[in-house]
């Protein structure tokens, strides 16, 4: 799925008035048009594994966002220093350092969340979203835009995770954020198999909306 990661990034315009337009464009790209989960299909492991509840989904989404913003900025700052041949190794070290910081902070301040996310906090290192954005965006753009891209992509990731977590917690356990609202749930939705099924349906819904929008556009022209 790596071929999907390259996003068209025109050279930054020197004119100041165009800055805000570009910031908005990068944000919207991350949140909707290039949503890392629903459109680019990146970071699947974390998406499927931690979305058994909405709380976990929010925790995972924000942790990943934090790592993504920091690593994007640092890699963008170092983009002229890092030799091309060893760039992937350099990116991985930067990312691993920030993941360790986030991991230790969660253990110190939010121990229960850290417990329920478990291994998957450390596995943010190998989340393809972060390396993908470092390679496709941060290494070619200024720190400001890289930070904006980190915020947009991170929040897009969080948004999709929250949708998954909400659906699986509600249908699987009949609860929202731990509060029981339905008498019972279908345990299978919260089980691993349910993760695949719910994500499959969500991606299908995205494609349905995209197809319809494309049809409408085509219909208008004809």
């Amino acid at each position, binding site marked *: 799925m790596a071929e999907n990661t390259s996003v068209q990034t025109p050279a930054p315009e020197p004119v100041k008035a165009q800055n805000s337009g570009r910031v908005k464009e990068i944000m919207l790209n991350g949140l909707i048009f290039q949503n890392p989960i629903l459109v680019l299909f990146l970071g699947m492991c974390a998406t499927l594994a931690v979305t058994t509840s909405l709380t976990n989904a929010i925790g995972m989404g924000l942790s990943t966002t934090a790592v993504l913003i920091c690593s994007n900025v640092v890699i963008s700052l170092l983009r002229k220093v890092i030799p091309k041949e060893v760039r992937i190794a350099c990116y991985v070290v930067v990312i691993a350092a920030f993941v360790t910081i986030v991991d230790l902070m969660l253990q110190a301040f939010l121990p229960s969340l850290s417990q329920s996310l478990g291994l998957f906090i450390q596995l943010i290192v190998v989340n393809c979203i972060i390396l993908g954005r470092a390679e496709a965006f941060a290494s070619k753009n200024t720190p400001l835009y890289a930070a904006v891209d980190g915020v947009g992509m991170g929040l897009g990731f969080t948004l999709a995770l929250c949708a998954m977590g909400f659906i699986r917690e509600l249908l699987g356990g009949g609860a929202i954020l731990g509060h029981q609202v339905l008498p019972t749930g279908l345990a299978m939705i919260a089980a691993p198999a349910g993760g695949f099924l719910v994500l*499959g349906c969500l991606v299908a819904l995205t494609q349905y909306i995209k197809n319809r929008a494309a049809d409408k556009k085509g219909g208008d022209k004809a």
Partner: protein
Amino acid sequence: MSLFSLVSLALTAILAENFVLVKFLGICPFLGVSKKTDTALGMGMAVVFVMGLSSMVTWLVNKYLLLPLDLAYMQTVAFILVIAALVQFVELFLKKFIPALYTALGIYLPLITTNCAVLGAALINVQNHYSFIQSIAFGVFSGLGFTLAIVLFASVRERLEFAKFPKAFEGFPQALITAGLIAMAFMGFSGLSIG
């Protein structure tokens, strides 16, 4: 380590706690390299090889480098570097000394660095305080579990290639639903863990 506990570790790692379908590790290659059965098998074999090797090396690094120096918090950084270096080294070694194996596994090796199953296995080994032999066995068995899952999945996908789907479900959603159904079958193994 007795034969019984080895068998129970194998059953747990391959079936009851299958890396892909139960623990959600290594989903990217699982979805990406599963269009044909033979490429799936090649990928699986490469993962078994690298996971066994990396479990061994990361165990040694942890025991003789990180723990004595009181650097346990550097595990994530150290392990990912070890794995990346190891994959590169294995690639060079195979190219030079066992070219037949290199042509079979070559294209899959670089992809393995970002396979979270490899790092996941290394971290689980440390968390569960596995011994040296147990770590290697866990790495190899988990790799075999990955191979089983990806080969099963690829053979189902081959059959579905010409099936008709609703337009919205074409491509990625169809693969996810298929994986969901296989995962459902694997839920039946969940009572199997012994010891």
